[in-house]
């Protein structure tokens, strides 16, 4: 059964990988699912790191947009978007076509690399 969107991104949410990495774009019979959120609360918002299970392997990823409405004057996306990154923070894909929220720049954390490979900002 498929439930509607509740909180932003937590364990077992299906996510959409938006960069052009091979791991994110090759079709697989199961969608990529979040299995852990690196946060004090188990809920991930924009800019949080999560662990993803893709094609039978575990990969870290960065949340760049979710369906849940956030603070006012921030963008809300129609899908839970995620960018794959390595353990040391380097993004695996080389380009991101979907718009990336601009608030990532103000947040504490390593987001300049993801912003550098993004095409347009929102």
């Amino acid at each position, binding site marked *: 059964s*498929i*439930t*509607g*969107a509740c909180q932003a991104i937590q364990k077992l949410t*299906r*996510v*959409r990988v938006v960069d*052009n990495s091979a791991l994110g*774009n090759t*079709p*697989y*019979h*199961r*969608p*990529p699912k979040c299995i852990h959120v690196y946060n004090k609360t188990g809920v991930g918002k924009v800019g949080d790191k999560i662990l993803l299970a893709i094609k039978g392997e575990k990969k870290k990823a960065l949340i760049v947009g979710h369906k849940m409405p956030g603070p006012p004057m921030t963008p809300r996306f*129609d*899908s*839970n978007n995620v960018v794959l990154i390595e353990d*040391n*923070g*380097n993004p695996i894909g*080389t*380009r991101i*076509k979907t718009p990336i929220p*601009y608030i990532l*720049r103000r947040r504490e954390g*390593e*987001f*300049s*690399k993801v*912003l*550098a*490979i993004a*095409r347009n*900002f929102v």
Partner: protein
Amino acid sequence: MPGRGGTRCRSAAEGMWRAVSAGCRLLRLVSAAGAAALRPEPPPRVFGAPRGACAAARGAGGGGVGALGEAEQRQAADTILPKFNIDFVVALLRQENAKDICVIQLPPEIKYCNYFIIVNGSSTRHLHAMAHYMLKMYKHHKEESDPHTHIEGKETDDWLCIDFGSIVMHFMLPETREVYELEKLWTLGSYDDQLAQITPQSLPEDFIFGLTPNSSDHLGMRT
């Protein structure tokens, strides 16, 4: 902006890329022509300590400072620190033996930053040393109102970056640079070839947005 390696693609990509990689040559030409929004006089290329450059620049740009003697100028320069702008940054990078300095000026429509710098390094230690040196100079020369910055990518061994608000710097190894090709993305914009190679996702024919809870979230399912 006209004539710079901005995001307007006026000539062939390779030619512009070469021009952009020349970096400071364009800056010097433009500032000599007085067309850009930089200082009207070209900053003298003194590769001593930055204080030396500052003293000469103050002397040249001051205009009516001819009355001051040499020693007094240098003394005054010690208390006045040079502003942390793009010319200063490029001079520091040359001092650090950075290879392939690529300075891209972004138009104000892209509200990301004013200048985007990509630098090659010869090894991991070189990258770390350059990044820490740039941060040290920034902390030394910044005014009180500028925010603090931190180095991102300290755990990696091939890509570090620092975000100075209006300037963003990326220190990469040559192999990493080949993989990501950031210059192509930021200068060519929509015409980038890696972007074109991303196969466009198309919606299925029976897609209706958000009609029932069962029909939404089609993008999450890959079958």
